[in-house]
């Protein structure tokens, strides 16, 4: 999902930075508030953030004959919401821009918007819609994580299509082309990522259900029932 340095014209690079900065500022404020209220949230933040570090470094082969990486942002978005997730993503993406030549400083804003803002926001929306319904808790996490992953790549396609409309077909034409590269490759990865992160969520539920209850991640009775299974 990285747009490479130099591959966005200056006006688009600036545009995405302008969108990304308020999201990050809001995320930092929220992070301060959550950690100020509950120090026990810090280890949970470590686990969810740790998985963003791990999963976003794994390039996996896909059915299209190309490789791509999962994002790992869904579980953080479920536990802390999309804005805190943006901050962690910004750290990962900055590391990758500075040391790995994946992405770059001018396109960092665009990459934060795709991986750190819209992806997590989409996953969070799914989770919020299903949280208080009868749908199985782990299924909600699978679904939210897969959608967060997939939407990240859809937004990358959108960002590139806006900057490079096709001569024939314009924006829509090149959006389809970029979706073919980014989104289709991502489908199997998104499903596996969802299942793996749901498993991680299960272990958190079993070890530390109190934190999830205090953060109101799911209704208390659902978490208690799931924690009692073990």
């Amino acid at each position, binding site marked *: 999902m990285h747009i490479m340095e130099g591959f966005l014209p200056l006006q688009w690079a600036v545009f995405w930075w302008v969108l990304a900065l308020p999201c990050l500022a809001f995320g930092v404020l929220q992070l301060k508030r959550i950690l100020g209220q509950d120090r026990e949230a810090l280890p949970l933040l*470590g686990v969810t953030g740790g998985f963003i570090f791990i999963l976003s470094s794994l390039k996996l082969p*896909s059915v299209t*004959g190309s490789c791509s990486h999962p994002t790992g942002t869904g579980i953080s978005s479920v536990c802390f919401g999309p804005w805190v997730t943006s901050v962690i993503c910004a750290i*990962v993406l900055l590391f990758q821009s500075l040391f790995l030549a994946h992405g770059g*400083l001018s396109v960092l804003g665009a990459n934060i918007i795709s991986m750190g803002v819209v992806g997590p926001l989409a996953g969070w929306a799914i989770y919020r819609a299903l949280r208080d319904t009868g749908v199985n808790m782990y299924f909600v996490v699978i679904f939210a994580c897969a959608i967060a992953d997939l939407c990240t790549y859809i937004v990358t396609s959108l960002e590139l299509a806006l900057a490079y409309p096709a001569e024939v077909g314009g924006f829509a034409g090149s959006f389809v082309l970029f979706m073919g*590269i980014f989104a289709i*490759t991502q489908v199997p990865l998104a499903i596996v990522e969802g*299942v793996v992160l749901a498993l991680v969520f299960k*272990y958190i539920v079993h070890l530390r259900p109190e934190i999830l209850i205090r953060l109101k991640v799911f209704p208390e009775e659902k978490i208690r029932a799931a924690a009692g299974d073990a």
Partner: protein
Amino acid sequence: MWAKYRLEIIAVAAIVCFCGVFLYTSSLNADAEYAGSDTLGSSRAAELAGISEEDFQPLVPQWEPPSGEIESGLFALQAAVGGIIVGWVFGFWRGQKNRST
């Protein structure tokens, strides 16, 4: 067994399927290069812009890892940092749980 380890079984099945699909599709398509989608996206952008990929200049000067070895090392470092934090926290929680029961 099924009730308790349902999610584990689904996760293992999903990973095995993923590997199986990869082995099957890669055997069908011997010329697939398995390049990164980022790289493919960049070439497509270059095609649409009608200029060659080398002509794209970084807007902000950028350091590039001198070789693929160094790059993969740095990726491994990134994953290791995440892994250490995750392992540390799960160990910490387990210890807390054992002490309280």
